[in-house]
């Protein structure tokens, strides 16, 4: 039970925002996602207004905010969510009613709404809330009553997004970036877990490095290797809100340093060979490549280093040379060649097969589809 309590405590820390932390703002149910740093002076722009982010500091991740007209202009205020629940249930009722309405009588001549822009501005000046404006728009719409309940709901949502936008406070997690299905497969196939030493070639801005570090949880190492003198940017890592424990496990090392054999024994040579053509040395066991990020390290266009992890310590390098890495992940898409991603992978796989360097080879591509199952 002691581990549970301990865990509870450390997780609690992660679940509330603090000044200076990175957050993901989900505006209007995923319509817009914005990364922000919570500082006293930071703002988010919604529509044509700026909202200070100060009220978000110290709130739990997952909190919902709505816009209000405060004493010092527009501001974000936290929503007490119980009211919303009952509201939702009411809507459910009407969804189930027999539907006899449709759009056969609808004439799209832009006269259905009798409220003008000036009227709305007037309401605002008098301190009407966003929801009150939405209700007024509905009341003054000549066609609302004739819409189907689905269509009514859609209308309400659309107006709500414009006049009563909502902001959800989210934790920046690895899964919130890019193709989550691809990234998740990379981490699984590479067997990333606490106490692993993972070698990565991250040419996708640090997403991979950050995602691996997240799974290591301050143990093991993620070592970002690169050809030439300048490491690829891992700028995105900064968004993850990692503490020192995790950050110091993110290191970099030029491929040349890693392959340099000061006291090369046979094992080191294996490693050398392996890094020459992209496969991890472990991967005489299982080598699995994902379809999306390609293994084309050859044409690396190295960007000017932004702020990568520290250079790996001599101790760590010594350790890797003695023990090897637990896995290697290469994510190096050619920036302008997404159409032919499979090609370098196919070449890589073929070479590995022909040279009998690995078994359990696979090229896979995930396919993800989202379903619309509920009107919410």
């Amino acid at each position, binding site marked *: 039970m002691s581990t549970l309590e301990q865990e509870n405590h450390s997780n609690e820390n992660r679940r509330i925002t603090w000044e200076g932390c990175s957050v993901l703002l989900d505006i209007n149910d995923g319509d817009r996602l914005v990364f922000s740093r919570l500082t006293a002076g930071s703002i988010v722009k919604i529509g044509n207004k700026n909202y200070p982010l100060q009220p978000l500091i110290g709130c739990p991740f997952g909190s919902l905010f709505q816009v209000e007209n405060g004493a010092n202009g527009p501001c974000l205020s936290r929503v007490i969510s119980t009211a919303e629940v009952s509201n939702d249930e009411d809507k459910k009722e009407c969804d189930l009613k027999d539907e006899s309405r449709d759009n056969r009588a609808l004439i799209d001549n832009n006269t259905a709404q009798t409220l003008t822009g000036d009227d709305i501005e007037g309401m605002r000046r008098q301190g009407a809330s966003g929801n009150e404006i939405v209700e007024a728009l509905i009341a003054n719409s000549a066609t609302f009553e004739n819409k189907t309940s689905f269509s009514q709901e859609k209308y309400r949502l659309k107006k709500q997004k414009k006049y009563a936008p909502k902001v959800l406070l989210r934790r920046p997690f690895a899964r919130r970036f890019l193709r989550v299905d691809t990234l998740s497969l990379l981490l699984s196939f590479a067997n990333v877990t606490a106490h692993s030493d993972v070698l990565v070639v991250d040419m996708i801005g640090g997403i991979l490095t950050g995602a691996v570090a997240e799974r290591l949880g301050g*143990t093991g190492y993620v070592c970002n290797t690169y050809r030439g003198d300048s490491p690829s940017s891992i700028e995105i890592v900064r968004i993850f809100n990692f503490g020192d424990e995790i950050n110091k496990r993110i290191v970099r090392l030029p491929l040349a340093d890693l392959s340099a054999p000061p006291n090369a024994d046979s094992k080191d040579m294996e490693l050398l060979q392996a890094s020459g053509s992209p496969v991890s040395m472990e991967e005489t066991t299982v080598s699995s490549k994902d379809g999306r990020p390609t293994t084309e390290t050859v044409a690396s266009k190295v960007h000017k280093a932004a702020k990568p992890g520290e250079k790996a310590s001599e101790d760590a390098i010594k350790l890797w040379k003695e*023990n090897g890495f637990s896995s290697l992940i290469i994510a190096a898409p050619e920036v302008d060649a997404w159409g032919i991603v499979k090609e370098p992978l196919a070449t890589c796989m073929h070479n590995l097969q022909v040279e009998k360097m690995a078994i359990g080879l696979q090229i896979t591509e995930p396919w993800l589809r989202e379903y619309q199952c509920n009107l919410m």
Partner: protein
Amino acid sequence: MLPTDPTKKLSFKRNISDGDLVIVYEKHDNMKAVKVCEKSVLENRFGIFKHADWIGKPYGCKVSSHKGGFVYLLAPTPELWTLVLSHRTQILYIADISFVVMYLELIPGCVVLESGTGSGSLTTSLSRAIAPTGHVHTFDFHEQRAAAAREDFERTGLSSLVTVGVRDIQGEGFPKDLTGLADAVFLDLPQPWLAIGSAGEMLKPDGVLCSFSPCIEQVQRSSETLASNFTDIRTFEVLLRTYEVREGKMDHCQTEGGTPGSRPCKRKHRTSEGSQWEQEHSGSSIVMARPSGEAKGHTGYLTFARLRCVA
């Protein structure tokens, strides 16, 4: 299976020892989990293999039988385990598993609840993600199945990370002593909506729930139930397509003519080393990838939701 115990960590220095669990690899679609026992032998169509010959060899090595046949001995991972475990129920595979682990935002230290345990395929990956300080509480109402799963976690060395309980989660909900402790909950139940209320009580605010259902009717009913206490309700289906790679002969003129779309692009981006390789192979043959014939079809829908954060 997991490197949480430093002495078990996979490394150049770590060799197979008596009592280890190894994955015997014949072909990519033919593997078997074997517990190494000095006096024991493995018999298959390639011959008889003495375990004693394996001890002291590095993981990933190739070993021979008395008549010269060979197999590879691999260190177990959750992915390999999924391929070799004994099916007591329908199981989840890599595509769904990795997506679930990512979407549940599992990292070391998390507490995750699962029901049902089934054959423990997902459980193994859940425990990898939350190790070394987190915990998986998994429940199945089938006593023998729970016991078999417990034995498996013993074999794979995950017992300290996983607690298997015998409990009808749909009927009774999760045990009250886990209230408010879970970072994530995974449901694979025939009527998940019956367990959603309890799952909500177990979750920390903003915690993530996932429900796996093969049928869209189940998804719909779950989504309706979720709407009262959860936000961000989203349903996905994830499939995995594999490609096979062949070296094919190709007419020299044709490749030079640039008819296949990929060739000119490829040339453009090659630098010194690449073009060297290409020269060796150009004209006579080309490496080609094409989608594999058999692909796993629909497994289930994954519905995710976050517990609403009440102010």
